[in-house]
């Protein structure tokens, strides 16, 4: 299903033409190269090759080097995916190392470099594990077979008697050869198609570049330095959609070496010293024309102006509200841009290197072949780094300066000029029979999106609809997309229905579910939590919720404590059961699940953007609270390993059950149903 979140709807180029084979060796050096051809539609979509090309006749083949073994024996794999903290670098390295029977350390995974890696739509939607890992495995398998053939030829042996062990080909009578010895002097290219691959072994391998991270040596984009590089800053409009009416930049002259760059509404400065730039920027006097715009105070009425018509008797109806929130990646947007002989290279932290390349090519009206985007492993994204604003700004400054320019957005800029998780209003109407079976389900989501909108419960009559609204703020994808909003509304409402039917919330869910995988996660979470075994302490409450999204099933049980004086809510304990098929790396999976749960605490209990007339009012960390150590509940994570099923991604789905299980626990504690995210009890003292 296509999701209405617009940042997920990019498609790739219509054609990918086969490059001249000699080109591979020009770029990569001699040795052997494996190309992966992607005939089937799912794989092609993943690689951005549209199915709707040439009037729908046949599918183009994507030819690109997916692997290279040099004469020096260095094994490189190439993928357009990027590492933004979801551990794909290690997971993918682990996958190919398993197939190639080679130690993880001997493999270099080249990621997110538009000059070197095959086209890729982007790193989002939890697609890296289900699609990229099998593709690279396939490449590794054929490379393994090929290396055995090369050795067999050299040794005049039967390749069936050879094997690869610990990165060396082993032959009869103790003969061994390194990969470099076998590929020396060869310039060979092999094409492979899709085919079956083995299931992941499910071992916990430590992060392959972990050492660089704990020593501070890993170069994130803001850490990159180029020779002669200048620093940049952008003059921001006073509000969204403001128009520049006048500008006086003469004050900048007192800052030696600082240059003003102006191009229409775009105004920036560059200079040799980063620390003088804020003062130089303040010396520019600009006036902006702004228009009145909707604010956060009247947001929900704006998103769904007319209340729904009266409901039929016997209907349970409720309205849920979801605030805008920010991703707050700890590494803000940053870019280093460099022009050389009309060709542009930009280092930037983005989840869509090829998308950003397109944006840059369009902004500067140059062919995409004149643009290279390189994505260093990045200080996270959570769906918030699909766009290339900062890359374009840095490139514009660098073009004017004639030197490389580094631009690092301030936290305030990241809070204001990035995009946000959509706000929304959700109306639900439902009816339940005497037997506790849901008979009618009507669900309308205004603006927040369609992900996770389908109910997992078996219901005879349902009407489920997403309504697009003109968003007052720039909005885009966010970890789990709208699944958080839709699950919050649905699973909160499920509890209200259970109570109206006087049935335990867990039992009520069981009664309306057929999907055994959902049943299994609910059961696992409930068992670990001790659901129904004890009563909460005074001012404490228990809640449960479950959900399904992107191939993963999750159930959470939460315990909250409400301070009777301040009314503040604290999550005490969260049990999460998660199942996403076969487990690739249990350690990192636990990390992903816990990370999603912790991130979910913010959206559930305190994160919300305040804005008015096109200005963000709380766009800094001192005014916008994110989860910290002291917000951490006791976390218990149960992973269900379904070795018989394909692995799905895990970066997103575990977030969806946190808000509703918390809300249900709050109701259980104090008898108040909170239907707005973030959930704050009336009269809370901060």
């Amino acid at each position, binding site marked *: 299903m296509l999701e209405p979140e617009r940042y997920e709807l990019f498609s790739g180029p219509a054609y990918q033409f086969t490059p001249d084979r000699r080109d591979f060796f020009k770029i990569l050096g001699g040795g052997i190269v494996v190309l992966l051809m992607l005939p089937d539609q799912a794989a092609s979509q993943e690689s951005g090759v549209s199915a709707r090309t040439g009037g729908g006749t046949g599918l183009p083949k994507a030819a690109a080097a997916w692997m290279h073994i040099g004469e020096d024996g260095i094994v490189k794999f190439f993928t357009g995916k990027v590492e933004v903290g979801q551990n794909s670098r290690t997971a993918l390295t682990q996958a190919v190392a398993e197939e190639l029977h080679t130690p993880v350390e001997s493999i270099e995974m080249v990621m997110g470099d538009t000059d070197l890696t095959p086209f890729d739509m982007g790193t989002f939607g939890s697609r890296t594990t289900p699609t990229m890992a099998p593709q690279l495995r396939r490449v590794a398998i054929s490379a393994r077979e090929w290396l055995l053939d090369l050795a067999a030829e050299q040794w005049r042996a039967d390749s069936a008697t050879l094997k690869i062990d610990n990165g060396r080909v082993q032959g009869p009578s103790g003969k061994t050869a390194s990969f470099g010895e076998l590929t020396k002097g060869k310039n060979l290219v092999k094409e492979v198609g899709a085919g079956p691959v083995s299931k992941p072994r499910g071992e916990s391998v430590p992060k392959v570049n972990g050492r660089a*991270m704990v020593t501070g040596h890993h170069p994130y984009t803001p850490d990159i330095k180029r020779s002669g590089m200048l620093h940049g800053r952008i003059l921001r409009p006073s509000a969204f959609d403001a128009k520049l009416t006048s500008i006086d930049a003469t004050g900048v002259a007192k800052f030696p070496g600082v240059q003003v760059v102006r191009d229409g509404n775009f105004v920036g400065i560059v200079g040799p010293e980063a620390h003088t730039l804020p003062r130089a920027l303040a010396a520019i006097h600009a006036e902006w024309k702004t228009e009145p715009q909707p604010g956060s105070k009247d947001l929900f009425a704006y998103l769904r102006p007319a209340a729904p018509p009266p409901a039929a008797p016997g209907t349970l109806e409720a309205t849920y509200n979801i605030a805008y929130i920010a991703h707050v990646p*700890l590494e803000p947007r940053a870019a280093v841009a460099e022009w050389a002989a009309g060709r542009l290279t930009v280092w930037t932290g983005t989840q869509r290197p090829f998308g950003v390349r397109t944006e840059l090519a369009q902004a500067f009206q140059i062919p995409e072949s004149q643009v290279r985007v390189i994505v260093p492993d990045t200080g996270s994204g959570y769906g918030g780094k699909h766009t290339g604003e900062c890359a374009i700004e840095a490139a514009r400054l660098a073009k004017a300066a004639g030197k490389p320019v580094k631009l690092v957005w301030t936290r305030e800029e990241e809070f204001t000029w990035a995009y946000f998780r959509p706000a929304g209003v959700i109306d639900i109407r439902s009816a339940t029979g005497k037997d506790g079976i849901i008979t009618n389900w009507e669900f309308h989501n205004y603006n927040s999106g369609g992900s996770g909108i389908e109910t997992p419960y078996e219901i005879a009559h349902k009407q489920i609809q997403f309504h697009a609204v003109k968003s007052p703020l720039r909005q885009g994808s966010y970890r789990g997309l709208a699944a958080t909003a839709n699950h919050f509304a649905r699973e909160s409402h499920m509890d209200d229905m259970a109570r109206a039917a006087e049935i335990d919330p867990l039992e009520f869910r069981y009664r309306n579910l057929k999907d055994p995988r959902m049943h299994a996660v609910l059961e696992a979470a409930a068992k670990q939590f001790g659901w129904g075994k004890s009563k909460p302490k005074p001012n404490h409450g228990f809640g449960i919720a479950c959900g399904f999204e992107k191939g993963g099933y999750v159930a959470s049980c939460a315990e909250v404590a409400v301070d009777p004086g301040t009314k503040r809510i604290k999550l005490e304990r969260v049990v999460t059961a998660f199942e996403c098929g076969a487990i690739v790396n249990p350690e990192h999976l636990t990390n992903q699940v*816990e990370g999603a749960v912790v991130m979910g605490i913010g959206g559930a209990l305190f994160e919300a953007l305040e804005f008015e007339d096109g200005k963000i009012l709380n766009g800094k960390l001192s005014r916008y609270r994110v989860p910290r150590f002291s917000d951490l509940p006791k976390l218990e994570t149960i992973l269900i390993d379904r070795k018989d099923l394909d692995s799905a991604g895990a970066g997103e789905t575990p977030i969806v059950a946190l808000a509703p299980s918390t809300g249900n626990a709050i109701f259980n504690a104090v008898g108040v149903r909170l239907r707005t995210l973030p959930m704050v009890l009336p009269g809370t003292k901060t």
Partner: protein
Amino acid sequence: MDLEVNGRTYKLEGDPERNLLGVLRDELDLTGSKYGCGEGQCGACTVLIAGAPVRSCITPLRVAAAKAITTIEGLASNGNLHPLQQAFLDADAFQCGYCTPGMIMSAAGLLAKSANPATPQITRAMHGNVCRCGTYPKIIAAVRLAAAAMKRGTHA
């Protein structure tokens, strides 16, 4: 002005009010300390000054001058990781790793004061460090692991 970082002395000119984080990153090429907020709220820029954790983004150069500063780059000795660095690896205590240098430096400050902190003490001491990836449980585990390793180290 003299600035002493990781045992090396640098001679610096110019505005004494500019912040230490910018000096480390842009002038001394010590980019291990990260910018996350610029207002002392996230801890990504944490360094040790005379053994105590400090937010370098809101520390003027003049305050740091002539004091012993340790950054994440100065924590390992002769290629041997500091026990905290090793523990962060062993406990898998990071995802994107952007908060990690600051986390490790804050934890180093804590362990210098208190050799065997219990979880609530770690939680209090590290409250000013944000991990947006939510790796908090593993970071706590790593700090405890490092404390144990350091204790063994001193007894050995």
